[in-house]
């Protein structure tokens, strides 16, 4: 009787849990509702004998039963029964408990159980897949930290002076000789410049006894030639060094160069100072030849007269002192 009254009021006047949609459906927001619709049969408030299936936050599924005997004690309305984790057993439990309840409620509870079990299974599967893949979405950085890092990065970039430091490091490597004796990434001219500069600075030194510098070898060979008066091939001059032979060179040119060189050489050592220019010219030719051989492309005659002169004087003065010392 009282159920009817409750229902009349709820349906016709006001129900806090009722939700009307535009399409004309009535939904029931009550958490104990077995179907989500607002019906005479499904209303948990308007039925003193009622049953639902719900999950706890942890995931266990419970059967909630409301009976007429407790309708005067609202705080004790719902009897909570834990259902088995096994789906079939849970169904049997519901069957047993709601034996004398209206078929509608029994059916709806079973349906609800089925759905909840399916949802739980699916959630577990997804969680396992996530764990296997292990690619958790990294939470976004707090905005304050993000701004801070952006600003610091900008300043760090300014402080880094990247291109400058790269250039510095590359030149440092070139200077230290990390690229080897005849670097592949450097022009012959530039490399020679570096070697000369190092020698002048005193950081590099010429060995008298062993083969090191290009110029030194040249001079030593000249000496030998003069003493022995032999003709030598182009190859022996470049003793111990890789010779790059390019297409542009013709053998005739080489021979011509050597002969000029040999010819003027003997005059050279007679008068050092007078023939400075000659020698430097010859050296230039020789270096030009070498430059041609070493370069990847043809170059014009590059004369650096002053530098060569200074070196020539140095070397020749050394030789002079040697001559003095040799008894």
């Amino acid at each position: 009787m009282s159920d009817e009254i409750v229902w009349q009021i709820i349906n016709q006047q006001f129900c806090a849990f009722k939700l009307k949609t535009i399409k004309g459906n009535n939904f029931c927001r009550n958490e104990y509702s077995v179907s989500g619709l607002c019906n005479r049969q499904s209303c948990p408030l308007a039925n003193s004998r009622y049953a639902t299936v719900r999950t706890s936050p942890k995931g266990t599924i419970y059967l909630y039963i409301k009976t007429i005997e407790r309708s005067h004690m609202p705080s004790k309305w719902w009897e909570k029964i834990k259902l088995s984790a096994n789906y079939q057993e849970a169904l049997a439990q519901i069957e047993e408990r709601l034996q004398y309840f209206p078929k509608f409620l029994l059916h709806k509870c079973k349906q609800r159980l089925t759905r909840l079990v399916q949802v739980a299974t699916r959630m577990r599967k997804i969680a396992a897949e996530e764990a296997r893949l292990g690619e958790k979405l990294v939470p976004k950085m707090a905005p304050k930290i993000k701004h801070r890092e952006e600003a610091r990065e900008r300043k760090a970039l300014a402080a880094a002076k990247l291109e400058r430091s790269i250039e510095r490091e590359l030149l440092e490597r070139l200077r230290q000789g990390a690229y080897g004796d005849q670097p592949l990434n450097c022009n012959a001219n530039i490399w020679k410049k570096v070697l000369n500069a190092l020698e002048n600075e005193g950081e590099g030194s010429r060995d008298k006894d062993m083969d090191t510098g290009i110029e030194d070898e040249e001079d030593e060979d000249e000496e030998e030639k003069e003493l022995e008066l032999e003709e030598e091939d182009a190859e022996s001059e470049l003793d111990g060094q890789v010779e790059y032979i390019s297409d542009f060179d013709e053998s005739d040119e080489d021979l011509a160069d050597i002969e000029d060189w040999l010819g003027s050489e003997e005059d050279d050592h007679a008068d050092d100072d007078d023939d400075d220019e000659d020698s430097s010219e010859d050296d230039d030719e020789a270096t030009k030849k070498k430059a041609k051989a070493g370069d990847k492309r043809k170059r014009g005659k590059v004369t650096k007269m002053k530098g060569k002169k200074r070196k020539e004087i140095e070397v020749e003065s050394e030789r002079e002192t040697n001559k003095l010392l040799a008894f």
Partner: protein
Amino acid sequence: MGFSKPGSVSLSQKTGNKLRRKQMYIEDKKAANKERHEERHRRRKEEAKDPELRRERLEKNQPASLDKKRIWDDVDDDSLGTVVDLAQLKRRRLEKAEAAAAAEADAVGNEEVEEDDDEDADSMLDSDEDMESDDEAAEEKKEKLRRQRAARTPSIAPSTTSTNLDLTPDSLTDQFKHLFADELPPIPKILVTTSLNATIHKEAQEIAAMLPNSTYIRRSAHVHAHKYSVREIAKFAKNRGYNALVVVMEDQKRPHQLLVIHLNSEDAAPGPTLTYSIRGYMPGKALLGHGNATNHYPELLLNGFKTPLGLLAAKSMNTLFPAQPELQGRQVLTLHNQRDYIFVRRHRYVFREARPTEKNVVDAEGKEMAGVKGIRAGLQELGPRMTLKLRRVDKGVGRAGSEGDDATKWEWKAKMEKKRTRFNL
């Protein structure tokens, strides 16, 4: 509010008359500017006569930059998380060892003197023999110490930016045996991939192009396909002989993180995973005046890695590239660490003569570099450019693939950035 430049903003006299106040302000400013102008003019004249003065002034007025104010942990420990400059640590330890040796030598000297005193008291024959033998022994010891001191290791090179990987502490080499092994594959094989459901294939391809001998493989795109996890991919890659796995993670259509997973040789478990966050990724096309890279092996430039963690990162990057660069390609890949941000740049360089307007290259302290006067290196930027920041170091393959107490070797935490002058790498 509290600051005022000398003699400019605050007026010497106060007046309520706004017009007059304006005038006063203008006059004040003029006077101050005139003063400064004359000062600078005078200074320039003096320094033109005597360049020493200029040099001294510049030396005295060094700008106080953050890098100069950098603070280090004051510990003698060189484990992974400590913020210690390894070069300085080594020097300090050497000095301590030397001091200890010197102290020992002194102690030996003292002992010798004491022995002599004792010997004199004994009979002549015995004492002579004893003295001689003891003398010899003492002499030998002294000689040994002297030799030790003379043969000390050369002083650590002054500050260049490039990293010296020889400074790796033993604790690090023990922890990551396979990374710091002596025999590493000459040309490492790298597998590049992305995170699941990624759309940044172009960027990933570019990153793969940056790493020589690397292949880019996409992740399975089909909805119902079995999605292989990173751990599984690492296992497969290892079986196929890859040396490293690089995963580019995505966030909102942009490369967001870079995972570098070292796959060690057959007998060892996959090695450390270094996670970097990527910021400011710019492909080559977006750069003005960019060049196109060839597939020569680039030279590697690792600048500014100072702490144990920094060295680990540097070594990790080192192992991703072939040991012998192809110098004829003249390409260089720079990983420059500045204040914990690693700037990645690719350039093509050429050594050329300096133009008449160009100055000579200057080293880190400000002195001109000897030997390369009049030579400059021209640079053309190639390929992608980005900024990396190291966030995690895991023992195994990512966070999920590491086990044990030390699964996470190092993790970045925001509280590490509280001090402006403290940097981790």
